[in-house]
């Protein structure tokens, strides 16, 4: 008997019935709530006028990001590992948690939002959904990440540290 068969046999037959309904979040938020919770999570909303002050070498392969202003600094072709700034679009924005959903859609590389010290999200207000449950419906068919604030750890004495492995800063600019 192989392991699969043995485990399924040990688990035994199902008792049937139907699953309880999903929770059905009553949370209904909008852009203002998203902005407030995004800031609470440690994110920063920046304006176009701030972009010139962003750090050096940027990395993006995301078509949604479109043409970038000249003052965004030079692009690096090396890799997201060497960039100062990773720029991605996003797939949904969640008001109740201030989260950003970034799928692994072509061009929207996973490391672009992860291996860099600063992640800049280029967002459209139309992507703000009503609830986390609605966001889960627009994850896309492959992989996705729900980002809620900059990378952090409290492993050492409970002291909050930002940017342990992922980005220290999470920025959002409205298109």
């Amino acid at each position, binding site marked *: 008997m192989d392991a699969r068969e043995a*485990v399924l046999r040990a688990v035994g037959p199902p008792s049937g019935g139907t699953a309880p309904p999903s929770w059905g979040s009553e949370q209904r938020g909008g852009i203002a709530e998203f902005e407030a919770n995004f800031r609470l999570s440690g994110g920063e909303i920046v304006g176009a006028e701030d972009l010139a002050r962003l750090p050096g070498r940027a990395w993006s392969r995301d078509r949604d990001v479109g043409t970038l202003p000249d003052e965004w600094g030079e692009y690096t072709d090396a890799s997201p590992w060497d960039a100062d700034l990773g720029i991605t679009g996003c797939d949904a924005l969640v008001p109740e948690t201030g989260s950003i959903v970034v799928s*692994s859609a072509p061009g929207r590389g996973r490391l672009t939002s*992860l291996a860099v010290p600063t992640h800049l999200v280029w967002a459209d207000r139309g992507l703000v959904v009503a609830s986390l449950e609605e966001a889960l419906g627009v994850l896309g*068919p492959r992989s996705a990440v729900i980002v809620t604030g900059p990378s952090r750890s409290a492993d050492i004495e409970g002291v909050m540290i930002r940017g342990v492995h992922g980005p220290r800063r999470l920025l959002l600019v409205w298109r």
Partner: protein
Amino acid sequence: MPLTPPFEEFRRSAGEGLTQKIRLASSTKVSQRKTALSSAFGDPDSARIHAAAIKDFVLSNLGTMLEAFEAAAVRRGIEVVWARDAQEANEAIEDVCREARPKGARVVKGKSMATEEIGLNHHLEQAGHHVVETDLGEFVVQLDGDHPSHIVTPIIHKDRHDSAAAFRKAGIVLASDEPEAIAEGARAHLRSEFVAADVGISGANFGIAETGRIVVVENEGNNRLSTTAPHTHIALMGIEKLLPRERDLALFLPLLAGSATGQPLTVYTHIIGGPREAAEQDGPRRVVLVLLDNGRSRVLHSPERVILRCLRCGACLNVCPVYREVSGHAYRHVYPGPLGAVLAPSLEGVEDYGDLARASTLCGACQEACPVNIPIPDLLLGLRRQATRQGSWTLWRRLAENDRAWRAALRLVPLAQTLAPGWRESHARLDNHSTAAQGEPHGRP
């Protein structure tokens, strides 16, 4: 498998200062949990009871759920391997590492209690692979040859100087002993490991039966780097970790994050849908999911069955007056605290771990804090009865023999009750809820 010396020795070596820190950290976590859950759910008790009903449905239909999950995962290009026990899981994972690099793979790991449970690092190292823990706390544990003392915050028993000393011993240069400097040292050191790694290994917080996707949550980003940068990603998941539908995450993600660390959601929630597709820019070329039984199917048919609802949030550790006093190592098992006091004897037998069921004042704070409303005090009582028949008393007797520890534990009972106001009433109320929920499993309580 004893992990450490008895807890009195641990307490002596840790010192009163550190015990105080664990108590303080625990009470901070308790208040943050309450704030987060009230803000997410309004009525967290309804959410906990609904989550329990969903997990119970999964447990009642685990066979069909597992088959559905496997079929959906395979359609996505995820390779699914089944493992009856720790040895089979270790061998399956070692096979994949060897396929990635026969002469010894470079492996980066995200935090996973399941891999601790099967002793994976030791197995892989014996087989000639280079394994690095990349979670900050777990990295310190690995450098020190230690064991985690909490399932969410593994080095709650160490201070900054202990951690810094572990780095220096390993030859990693730090600017100072400040937590920021230690984190910077880890970031710089582990970067090259991520870039060079052949294999990334993670646990899994949830598997979605409907879609075959794997969900991993974390705050640092190391888990995501481990599951993205290397050629091969291996995930180890207990068979009980399934949820029926992706939309169930809207309940379980805030419940888990709020209960574990008081966050609305963890910083990163990875929804892993399989290996990289041609048009995708990065991600692993190969994704292998190992489904681990290792005693779970036996627990499923035991009186302790509902412990399999557990999400591994650690909330029951933070509220437990005994855990706060003796810390995690005293439990001698990878799963400490109230959940461990049930899970360890359930998985491995009351002969070896039955005494853990006595390491509880039955104050009820653990059930009150549990995001899936596991009746831990009832389960502990049942295990005590079993253990009494087997005559296993070790830890509880130690606690009773150590006057200071005993008095301290008792002193903390009213504190736990203060931190969980109205626990007695809500305990009764939850029992009513549970009865109602059993009678009408498909309605919102």
